């Protein structure tokens, strides 16, 4: 294998060397507990607070509205369960969409078992939810609306500013999972009116195991983790100093460089989309062509299954992912692809290519040429393709 091409940045990103450098002192010597009164504890505390400010700046929030968590999933769980538990007397109705990440969707499914009523507003065929659908679902007893900023599989950017606006005179709190969006598109909590926003450092070249939840000041929310008085008594656990410092540095760098990196990502993405749609027949682009993350391209290749595609790509040094059932360990293909109205057999043949901040150096033509060869090879083996070809020649 001559080269490795990483096109799975929506799954995770490479830790930036500069991020690692600012983290290392907190792993190599700066072990003080940030809650301790002596010097090494105070230094850690100071570094954490500086990082909190950087995270706040990135989304136009105040630093005392940022709470560090162990992951994006924890931030999602906290936002939803915390709001529900603290506001149960105001109602039992919740709203979300049918393309949320499992860290949101499965929490709502859990709450349904606990007696809450959830409306899952379906997205349109382009993978974008219509704010009118959210408005229609709103009830007097709705206490929470959760809509992701951008989708992790198909990259579609949701109209969260419009949704925030229509919720401004409603009691319901507004949560948005911005895990995929941060560092790729501008995220501004004042503009969206979000009350809660989840993020995760490893999606923007920071370390794994660290995330954050933005909680607008004044929002009534219960704790998820009870214990010590960390994070202004809202999230017990000794702080992950190195992770927090890494997250602060990574988010600042990502936002600072966003115009440049997003431009390069878009170029690479558009080249992939244009050539693949032009040169590989019976291929569908999943998700809106324009309103999508700069690095996301998601296709369905008819008549083939995604896992074989990934294995052959891997042999060529190309790393990607698929929404097929075989790669998820379940019998059903991705709920996001099914939400677009794709039949199961087409959803099984999906491929997500997600470009990262090294977009400039990616040999997209090598990827496309490899893909053409692999799709043709798998189709040659496919009884579905054989059937299709026969019915086509019968028509001619």
């Amino acid at each position, binding site marked *: 294998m001559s080269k490795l091409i990483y096109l799975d940045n929506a799954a995770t990103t490479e830790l930036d060397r500069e991020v690692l450098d600012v983290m290392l002192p907190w792993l190599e010597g700066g072990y003080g507990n940030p809650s301790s009164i002596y010097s090494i504890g105070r230094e850690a505390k100071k570094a954490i607070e500086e990082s909190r400010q950087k995270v706040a700046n990135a989304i136009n929030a105040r630093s005392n509205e940022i709470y560090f968590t162990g992951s994006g999933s924890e931030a999602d769980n906290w936002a939803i369960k915390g709001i529900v538990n603290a506001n149960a007397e105001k109602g039992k109705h919740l709203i979300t969409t049918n393309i949320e990440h499992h860290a949101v969707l499965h929490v709502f499914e859990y709450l349904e078992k606990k007696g809450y009523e959830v409306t899952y507003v379906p997205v349109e065929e382009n993978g974008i939810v219509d704010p009118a659908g959210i408005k229609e679902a709103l009830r007097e007893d709705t206490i929470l609306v959760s809509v992701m900023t951008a989708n992790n599989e198909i990259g579609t950017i949701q109209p969260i500013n419009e949704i925030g606006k229509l919720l401004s005179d409603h009691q319901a709190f507004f949560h948005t999972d911005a895990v995929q969006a941060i560092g790729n598109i501008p995220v501004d909590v004042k503009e969206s009116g979000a009350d809660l926003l989840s993020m995760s450092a490893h999606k923007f070249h920071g370390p794994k195991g660290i995330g954050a939840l933005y909680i607008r000041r004044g929002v009534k929310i219960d704790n998820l983790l009870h214990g010590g008085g960390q994070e202004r008594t809202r999230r017990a656990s000794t702080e992950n100093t190195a992770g927090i410092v890494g997250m602060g540095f990574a988010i600042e760098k990502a936002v600072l460089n966003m115009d440049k990196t997003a431009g390069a990502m878009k170029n690479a993405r558009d080249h992939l989309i244009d050539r693949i749609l032009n040169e590989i027949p019976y291929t569908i682009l999943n998700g809106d062509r324009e309103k999508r993350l700069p690095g996301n391209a998601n296709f369905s290749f008819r008549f083939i*299954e995604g896992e074989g595609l990934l294995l052959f790509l891997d042999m060529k040094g190309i790393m990607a992912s698929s929404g*097929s059932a*075989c790669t998820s360990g379940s019998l059903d293909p991705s709920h996001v692809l099914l939400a677009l109205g794709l039949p*199961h057999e087409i959803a099984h043949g999906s491929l997500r290519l997600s470009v990262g901040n090294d977009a400039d150096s990616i040999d997209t033509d090598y990827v496309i040429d490899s893909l053409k060869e692999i799709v043709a090879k798998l189709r*040659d083996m496919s009884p579905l393709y054989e059937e299709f070809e026969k019915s086509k020649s019968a028509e001619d």
Partner: protein
Amino acid sequence: MYTDKVMDHFSNPRNVGEIKDANAIGEVGNAKCGDIMKIYMKIEDDIIKDIKFKTFGCGAAIATSSMATELVKGKSINEALDLTNKAVAEALGGLPAVKMHCSVLAEEAIKEAICNYLKDKGVDIESFSKCDNCCRGN
């Protein structure tokens, strides 16, 4: 997660294709679940002279199809009906637990083809003792 044998049969599958004058064809699985296997055989004097397959499915589905065709090629239909999914999986050095159903599908595809052949020949399937496990889908 896959053994070298599985990867070998996935990346260089044996007996892929179609037999134009096949006298035994079996197709199992469905597209909704993400697996379809189609087996073509040329049977002469109850011997599987030639066998080809086409599969829509994951790496394990392709590898088990390839291995199953190898295991029964040149065998009598009686021997082929003794094929078990376990034998296919073992020949591949094992399969991940979540992929064992692929080996079941491979076994079923082989038996389905033979079953169709026997039926075409007018053999009473019920009296064909070796056929307990085939023709289940019919």
